[in-house]
């Protein structure tokens, strides 16, 4: 990874010197070795630039704000394959000024979930270094080595494609790791097979954890509204907290519906949830439904139709075998 990071830095320098870009949206090294944060590097100053096993964050959504001003010159954004899907969506929905952005596709071999490492019992991590797939963790309680592949982010476990979309240039992307073998719909299928009350129990126990922090929404490249209905006092559904179980359900049902057909399955919602709610299972259910009911279409599923579409009653028929 370090080598890749260095090469990216060189590439950035080259593009800056050529006057192609004025700023860079990348990751900045954190305090503990695992907390690299999205950062805008300006004036060619790449101090603390990093691209490491913890650069999981998708940077595409920052482009809404960063590309707004024509006078600022072009910003370079570093995009992993799955980041580009959201980027493409933002472009398609006119949410970014594409002409002010230089999108650089960079390789990704899967990103690490620090919470998973912590949950395995490692505490007090103060420094992390990488040696190929091994992470060397320096902690307050001693040193430890772990294999990166055992602690990948959930979204990386179901990595479905290394395809880059809407990029200006691809950089070293042949160094991408393989996609995952794991079927991304497996979890959804498992849930579908449950009985109605089991499903209800499952989602209750998950959604009751929701603290309505809006992290899932704010990180989502499909949730790019200037003003969300849930923030708009005139919408009739605005709320700042879940007063009860209904509001927990409402928020997540409506959010899933609003991104239905537009969700690119980048997995950021589940990554950022402080309460570890598997939010991607809602969105992925829609992706699965759309695939099954409407096949592959270019247009977002809810923005188009065919005259032969299935009737809503298909929902009752499909559910017949599991009451």
């Amino acid at each position, binding site marked *: 990874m370090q080598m890749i990071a260095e090469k990216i830095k060189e590439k950035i320098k080259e593009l800056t010197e050529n006057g192609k870009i004025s700023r860079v949206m990348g990751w*900045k090294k*954190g*305090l*503990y070795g695992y*907390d*690299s*944060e*999205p*950062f*805008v590097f*300006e004036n060619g100053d790449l101090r603390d630039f990093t691209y490491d096993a913890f650069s999981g*964050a998708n940077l595409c*959504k*920052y482009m809404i*704000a960063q590309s707004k001003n024509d006078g600022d010159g072009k910003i370079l954004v570093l995009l992993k394959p799955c980041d580009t899907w959201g980027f493409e969506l933002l472009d398609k929905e006119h949410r970014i000024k594409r002409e002010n952005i230089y999108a650089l596709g960079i390789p990704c071999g899967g990103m690490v979930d620090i919470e998973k490492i912590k949950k395995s019992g490692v*505490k*007090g*991590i*103060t420094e992390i270094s990488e040696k190929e797939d091994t992470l060397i963790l320096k*902690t*307050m*309680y001693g040193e430890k080595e772990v294999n990166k592949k055992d602690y990948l982010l959930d979204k990386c476990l179901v990595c479905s494609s290394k395809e880059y979309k809407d990029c200006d240039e691809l950089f070293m992307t042949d160094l991408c790791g393989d996609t995952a073998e794991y079927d991304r719909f497996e979890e959804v299928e498992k849930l579908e097979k449950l009985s109605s009350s089991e499903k209800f129990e499952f989602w209750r*126990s*998950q959604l009751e*954890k929701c*603290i*309505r*922090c*809006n*992290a899932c*929404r*704010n*990180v989502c490249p499909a949730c790019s509204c200037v*003003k969300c209905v849930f*923030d708009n*006092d005139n919408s009739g559904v605005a*709320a*700042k*907290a*879940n*007063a*009860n179980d209904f509001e927990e359900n409402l928020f997540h049902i409506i959010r899933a519906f609003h991104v239905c057909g537009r969700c690119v399955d980048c997995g950021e919602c589940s*990554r*950022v949830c*402080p*309460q*570890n709610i598997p939010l991607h299972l809602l969105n992925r259910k829609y992706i699965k439904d759309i695939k099954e009911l409407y096949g592959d279409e270019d247009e977002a599923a809810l923005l188009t139709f065919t005259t032969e579409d299935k009737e809503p009653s298909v929902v009752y028929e499909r559910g017949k075998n599991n009451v």
Partner: protein
Amino acid sequence: MYKLPFEEINKLFEAVSLNTALYVPVKKNDTVVYEKYSENTIYAYDELNTVKSAKDFFFPQVQDIAQFKLRGKSIEIINNEEDYESFAVFGVRACDAKSFEILDKVFLAEPADPYYKERREKGVIITAACEKPDEVCFCTAFGIKPWEPSGDVSVWISGGYIYWQANTQKGLELTGKIKDIFNACEENEIEYFKAQIKNICGKLPFGNLDLKYFKETDEKDIFSSSVWDEIYKGCLGCGTCTFVCPTCQCYDIRDFDNGKTVERFRCWDSCMYSDFTKMAHGNPRKTQKERFRQRFMHKLKYFPMNNEGIYSCVGCGRCVRSCPQKLNIVKVAEAFSHD
């Protein structure tokens, strides 16, 4: 001071819960929360902190205030006069225990907040020393001693025992009711553990977080510092940090029409939100930078300015851990310390 073999901890819970409702941190569904004690409760003693802080007990996320009954042209106001049961919260860490003192300054200052006040009076806080602090902890920077947590009762879990020490009148009362279950214990039996924790705390990477800049610089200078221009850029504007924070105390008041009455309730708000401080003319804090700055100015400058130098942060590390994009107060403090 009393002690009890750790494997008999449920005996302790049982005894407490006979006297008052008891809340204990448990692992549930991939998260750590407080749960009302029942015989199936398994205390998550190896988890340092719950995801949401203990402030929920005194300043819950949603609090009913009143109801309005409309009938024709008349409005009847029914104040919420909920009877709170007394309760005890077990396993509160030193940082959260300190956070109540900070919240007290806000909610108990005249005019006192009746809901908070009543809950504070009814609640017994049983704190637990931090045997194994984490790297995100920096409570010591605020003079908090995780080896000697405050609270109505403090406990230490060490060497196969749980040690119990009452600190306040409320604590003594509770102890009096349950002391039969304990074994006697020397006061100095835990000194070794305390020293051990203290020693580990010395290794906390930001245990001595440098706050000199905030302490010594004029607030206008901090406010206009160019450092803010950079460090906020990763901020998504979500409310995660404020909702997990034990000291954030902002709330909004909203109404809900349930068909019979209009219910007025208050719920947590977040200064990270774009409509926070929104007024008729618009919003004085127009950009995320301003919102981001506000949060940290409040915690590290405005609050101490108005409260004898007490920071509105207890170093619990929750925001460090929960921020989706890994921004946090430590990074802010660090950014200024290098300035």
